[in-house]
């Protein structure tokens, strides 16, 4: 009788045999006590091997119970709720304080409290006072205000023969020290700036432009002006237009003069957005133009001296902060812009040199 090989008994116990093999082995084991002993020995060896290898296995991690997981989740939720409640409480406190402060500011009597002492409120009050003074001054018999309002937008340009409103009170008034009038100035300047930045008409410009808005910034000029294209203006002038090479030309204005070449005003834009204007014409026209412009300019310094009395080819500082003029013979070349006087002087010398070389 053939006994069962040991490896087959291993496979039998490991369930690695086919059903037929298992039936054969079981039928033999039922009749063979030797093989039964061997089988029991192999089973013990198998169990012992399993026990030994089990000591190599990593420690089993027992998952936490459902109760502990639920308890942990509840704690997390309650902590989040506590944080939210704390945040909501803090936010409501801030809101209440803010509302209280706003209410105290709104319902506080005017003229008192710290709010009315701020520079902004001073500016508003001063501006309001200046408005009222302006209205009062326009009424007949109104008492002159001790503080002349620094109204940057003069409603009407005064006639040259009319007495100029005194500038001194403006400079000494408290209104001059605040920046509020700048806003009103910019609002009135906008249409003029739009006109300055408008695209040039390529045609020789039959359009007549009446610059009748007496600007205070000195960027516009009185009289009948024609806005012309570059070529049209150059053809009319019969000579190179006064300009600075390299700067885009945004507008050319021409004013006819009697018996002489017209007065040319070339507006060019700097990279900073500022517009500078180069004026070329007869000395009388240009000096008169600059003088009128300076007189209407609230912020500019008064014309110092008569530019027509300067000698030929001499530079005359008409307005150190806004314009520079140079007279050559009976012609005058001027440049205006909100630039330092040194810059304007350098520009006008450059223009003069270029125009002479051409």
């Amino acid at each position, binding site marked *: 009788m053939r006994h069962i090989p*040991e*490896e*087959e008994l*291993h*496979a039998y116990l*490991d*369930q*690695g045999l086919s059903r037929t093999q298992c039936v054969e082995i079981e039928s033999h084991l039922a009749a063979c006590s030797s093989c039964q002993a061997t089988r029991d*020995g*192999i089973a*013990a*060896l*198998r169990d*012992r*091997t*399993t026990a*030994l*290898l089990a*000591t*190599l296995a990593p420690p089993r991690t027992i998952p936490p119970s459902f109760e502990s997981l639920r308890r942990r989740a509840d704690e997390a939720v309650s902590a989040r709720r506590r944080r939210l409640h704390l945040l909501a409480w803090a936010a409501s406190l801030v809101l209440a304080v803010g509302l209280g402060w706003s209410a105290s500011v709104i319902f506080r009597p005017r003229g008192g409290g710290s709010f009315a002492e701020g520079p902004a409120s001073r500016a508003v009050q001063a501006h309001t006072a200046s408005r009222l003074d302006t209205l009062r001054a326009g009424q007949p018999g109104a008492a002159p205000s001790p503080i002349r309002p620094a109204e940057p937008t003069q409603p009407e340009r005064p006639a040259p023969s009319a007495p100029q409103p005194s500038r001194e009170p403006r400079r000494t008034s408290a209104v001059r020290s605040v920046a509020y009038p700048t806003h009103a100035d910019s609002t009135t300047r906008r249409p003029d700036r739009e006109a300055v930045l408008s695209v040039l008409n390529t045609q020789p410009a039959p359009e007549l432009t009446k610059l009748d808005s007496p600007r205070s910034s000195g960027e516009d000029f009185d009289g009948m002006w024609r806005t012309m294209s570059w070529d049209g203006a150059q053809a009319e002038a019969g000579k190179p237009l006064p300009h600075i090479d390299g700067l885009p030309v945004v507008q050319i204005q021409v004013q006819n003069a009697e018996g002489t070449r017209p007065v040319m005003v070339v507006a060019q834009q700097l990279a900073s957005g500022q517009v500078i204007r180069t004026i070329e014409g007869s000395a009388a026209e240009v000096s008169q133009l600059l003088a009128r412009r300076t007189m209407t300019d609230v912020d500019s310094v008064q014309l110092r001296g008569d530019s027509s009395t300067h000698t030929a080819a001499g530079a005359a500082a008409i307005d150190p902060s806004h314009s520079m003029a140079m007279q050559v013979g009976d012609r005058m070349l001027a440049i205006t812009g909100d630039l330092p006087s040194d810059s304007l002087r350098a520009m006008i010398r450059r223009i003069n040199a270029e125009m002479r070389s051409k």
Partner: protein
Amino acid sequence: MASVQDALNTLTPRDREILLLWDAGLSYPEIAAQTGLAVGAVGTTLARARRRLVDAHDRQHSGTGTDAAHS
């Protein structure tokens, strides 16, 4: 545990691999497919590996005076 690991190290790599695969729960055909052995050879290899492991473990414990009863 260190003694079991030492006992394992005494086995050949093939015997150790098949013993650990069987301990991981793979069936004979799966072990055969994993190692490239014939299915019939898996039982033979397992029988040898088990005996060598237990003998090596018993030798270690008998050398230190520990009771290493062999079943």
